[in-house]
C-alpha cells in the first residue's frame, strides 16, 4: 500500500522544475497548485496551497455576540448561510442552551436547504459541467458556463434556474440572496407569509423534476465511462458527517459518524460538542489552511473526507423518497465497498440537490413556517459550539462569550479545511496517473483542477504571482508613496 503522504515533499526540491497552476479556476476562492518534476517529467512533489488568510477568528474577539452570525458569514459568499446558521446554532447554546421554536427551526432548515440547492447547482452546472460535458482537455476558450450555454442551452438554463430558485428560498427566509440576516441567536427574525410560501411553492415541483434530471445526467456520464469515473482522483479514506438520531442524512443538525475506507463504522452518534478532543488541527508550512485529523488515529491515518461523497455513503437513508431511491442506486454501483473516486462527489452532490428540492417542498407545505413564535428563551451560558453540514461538508463554529456579552474566543473549522488532506491526496493521485513522464500541457494540468473541483472547495481569497514571492513587499500608492511594508526573514519571521 502506498504511503499516505506520498509526493507531498520532494527530497531535493531545488533540483527540480516547478510548474504552477494559479489561480485554480472554476472553484470558489483562490488556491494554487505547485508541481515539482525532474528532467524526465517524473513527479516528485504536488501541493495544493491555500493562500487565504483573513484572521476572522481573531478579530471576532471583542465583538458583541449577536453580531457574529451576520459578521462571520462574510467568510464566504458561496455558502454564507452555512456560517450564518453554524454561528447562530453556537449562539443559541449561549443565549438559551440551544432551543428553538418549531417555526424558527423550520425557517432555518428552509434557508439551509435552499442554500444546498443553489450551491450544488452552481457547483455542478456553472463550474464543473464544462469538464464533464466537453472533456478534461477540451478547448480552454469554451470550457466554461458560457460554452455550455452555447452547446447545451437547456442544461445551462436548467442550472441557472435551479440556482435562482435556491437563491430565492434564501432571500425569502433571510431577506437577501447573499449575506442575509434571517437567523438571530435564539431564533429567526421572520417567518413566511402565505404569499411568500405560494411564490416558492409554485416552482417547487419543477425544481424536483430538474434535480432528478441532473442526477440522471451525472449518473449517465458515470456509467458511460466507469473506468474513468470510478478511479479518477481516488482517495480511499475515512469519511465523516453528521447524521440524525436514526442515522439518516440531515444537513441542519445531528451527531457525528465516521466510517473507514471500507465502510466500517469508526464512531457513531458522537455529540459535536466534543469536537475539539475528537479532532486535532495540524499545520503545514506551505498552506494557510490547516490539516485536521481524528485525534485517536493520529496525523498519518486520521485524516478524512467530508461533503457529499462522505455524507451519502455515511448515512443509512435519506428521508425524501426520490433521493433515497437514487442513494440506493448509488450505493449499489459501488458494490460492497464505498466509492472513493473523486468524480463520485458529483453524483452524490446531485442526489443531495434532489433531497434539498424535495425537502424544500415538504417544508413549504408545513404550516409551522408561517408561525409567529420566532424566539425561544432559556438559561444563559458562556460557551457554544454549532455544527452544520454545509454544501462542502461538516462546518464547526465554537465561541466563548464573557459576562459583558463580548466574544472572547472563536474557533472555526470550515468544510474545505476538513478536506485539505483529501484534496492533496487526490491531486497527487491524478499527477501520478496522468502527468507522470508526459510533456505537460494545459489539458493535462486541467486534470489536476478537475480533481480539485470534485471537492467543490471554497478557498475564498487571494493569489497570483509567478515565481517565488518576494521576501519583502512594499505597497505604494498611485503617487509612489509607501503605504505598507512587510518583510519575512529566513526563519519566516514577519516584521515591518
Amino acid at each position: 500500500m502506498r504511503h499516505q503522504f506520498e509526493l507531498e515533499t520532494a527530497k531535493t526540491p531545488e533540483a527540480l522544475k516547478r510548474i504552477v497552476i494559479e489561480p485554480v479556476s472554476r472553484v470558489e476562492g483562490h488556491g494554487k497548485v505547485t508541481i515539482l518534476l525532474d528532467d524526465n517529467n517524473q513527479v516528485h512533489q504536488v501541493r495544493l496551497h491555500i493562500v487565504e488568510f483573513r484572521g476572522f477568528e481573531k478579530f471576532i474577539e471583542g465583538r458583541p455576540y449577536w453580531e457574529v452570525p451576520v459578521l462571520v458569514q462574510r467568510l464566504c459568499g458561496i455558502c454564507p448561510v452555512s456560517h450564518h446558521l453554524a454561528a447562530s446554532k453556537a449562539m443559541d447554546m449561549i443565549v438559551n442552551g440551544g432551543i428553538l421554536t418549531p417555526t424558527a427551526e423550520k425557517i432555518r432548515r428552509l434557508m439551509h436547504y435552499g442554500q444546498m440547492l443553489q450551491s450544488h447547482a452552481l457547483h455542478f452546472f456553472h463550474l464543473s459541467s464544462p469538464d464533464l460535458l466537453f472533456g478534461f482537455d477540451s478547448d480552454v476558450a469554451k470550457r466554461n458556463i458560457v460554452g455550455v450555454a452555447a452547446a447545451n442551452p437547456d442544461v445551462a438554463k436548467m442550472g441557472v434556474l435551479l440556482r435562482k430558485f435556491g437563491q430565492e428560498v434564501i432571500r425569502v427566509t433571510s431577506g437577501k440572496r447573499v449575506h442575509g440576516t434571517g437567523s438571530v441567536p435564539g431564533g429567526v427574525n421572520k417567518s413566511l407569509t402565505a404569499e411568500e410560501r405560494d411564490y416558492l411553492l409554485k416552482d417547487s415541483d419543477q425544481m424536483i423534476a430538474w434535480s432528478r434530471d441532473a442526477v440522471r445526467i451525472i449518473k449517465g456520464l458515470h456509467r458511460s465511462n466507469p473506468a474513468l469515473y470510478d478511479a479518477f482522483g481516488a482517495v480511499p479514506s475515512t469519511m465523516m458527517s453528521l447524521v440524525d438520531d436514526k442515522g439518516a442524512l440531515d444537513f441542519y443538525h445531528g451527531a457525528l459518524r465516521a466510517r473507514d475506507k471500507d465502510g466500517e463504522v469508526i464512531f457513531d452518534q458522537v455529540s459535536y460538542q466534543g469536537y475539539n478532543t475528537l479532532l486535532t488541527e495540524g499545520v503545514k508550512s506551505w498552506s494557510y489552511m490547516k490539516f485536521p485529523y481524528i485525534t485517536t488515529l493520529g496525523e498519518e491515518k486520521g485524516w478524512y473526507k467530508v461533503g457529499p461523497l462522505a455524507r451519502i455513503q455515511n448515512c443509512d437513508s435519506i428521508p425524501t423518497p426520490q433521493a433515497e431511491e437514487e442513494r440506493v442506486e448509488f450505493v449499489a454501483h459501488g458494490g460492497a465497498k464505498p466509492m472513493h473516486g473523486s468524480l463520485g462527489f458529483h453524483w452524490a452532490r446531485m442526489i443531495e440537490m434532489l433531497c434539498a428540492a424535495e425537502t424544500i417542498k415538504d417544508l413549504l407545505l408545513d404550516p409551522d413556517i408561517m408561525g409567529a413564535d420566532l424566539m425561544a428563551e432559556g438559561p444563559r451560558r458562556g460557551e457554544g459550539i454549532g455544527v452544520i453540514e454545509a454544501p462542502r461538508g461538516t462546518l464547526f463554529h465554537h465561541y466563548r462569550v464573557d459576562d459583558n456579552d463580548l466574544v472572547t474566543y472563536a474557533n472555526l473549522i470550515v468544510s474545505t479545511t476538513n478536506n485539505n488532506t483529501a484534496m492533496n491526496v487526490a491531486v497527487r493521485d491524478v499527477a501520478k496517473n496522468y502527468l507522470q513522464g508526459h510533456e505537460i500541457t494545459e489539458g493535462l494540468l486541467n486534470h489536476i483542477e478537475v480533481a480539485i473541483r470534485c471537492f467543490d472547495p471554497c478557498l475564498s481569497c487571494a493569489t497570483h504571482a509567478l515565481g517565488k514571492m518576494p521576501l519583502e513587499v512594499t505597497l505604494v500608492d498611485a503617487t509612489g508613496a509607501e503605504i505598507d511594508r512587510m518583510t519575512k526573514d529566513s526563519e519566516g519571521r514577519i516584521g515591518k
Partner: protein
Amino acid sequence: MNAPLPKRKLKVATTSLAGCFGCHMSFLDIDERILDLVELVEFDRSPITDIKHCSPDCDLGIIEGGVCNAENVHVLHEFRKNCKILIAMGACAINGGLPAQRNSLDIRDILAAVYAQPGRGVHIPNDPEIPLLLNEVHPLHEVVKIDYFLPGCPPSGDAIWKFLTDLLAGRTPTLGHGLIHYD
C-alpha cells in the same frame, strides 16, 4: 461586397482579492440575464473561466475584495495594466470591508494566535509559495486608480445589472434608492 463587420464583444475580466466571492455570486444573481449579457460581453480572466491572466485588451475589469497580501497587489496591478476601466465591486474593494477589522490588530499577533497548537508551539506557515501578508487590508483605490465604485455587501444582482447596462450603454452608472446599499 463585404459583410458588415461583427460588432466586437466587450472583454470583461473579473477577480476576487481579499473577498469572499459573494460579489461574484451576486453577479450570477442576474440569473437568466447572464444569457443576454454574454451576447454583449466575453469573459476573459475570471473565476468562471480557465483563463489565468488578463488579455492585454480587456475593456472592463471587475474586482471584488480588498488588498491583504502580496499576491493581491500583483493581481491588482495586472488588472490595472490590462483593463481600460476598473470597477471596485463591493464593500471590501471599496473600504476593505470586514477583513479590514484585522487592521486594528498586529498581524504577527493574529498569526501567532491562529497557528498556536496546544502543546506543540506556534507554527506559522512560511513557505515561499504562500504570499506575504500585508500589515493592513487596503481598499483598492489606495493602490491603483479605480474608475467606478459599486457598493454593497454584495451589491444585489439587480444593482450589478443596472450598473453594467448603464455602463455598456455609455451612461454614467447610477443606482438610486433600493439599489444602493452598503450591506
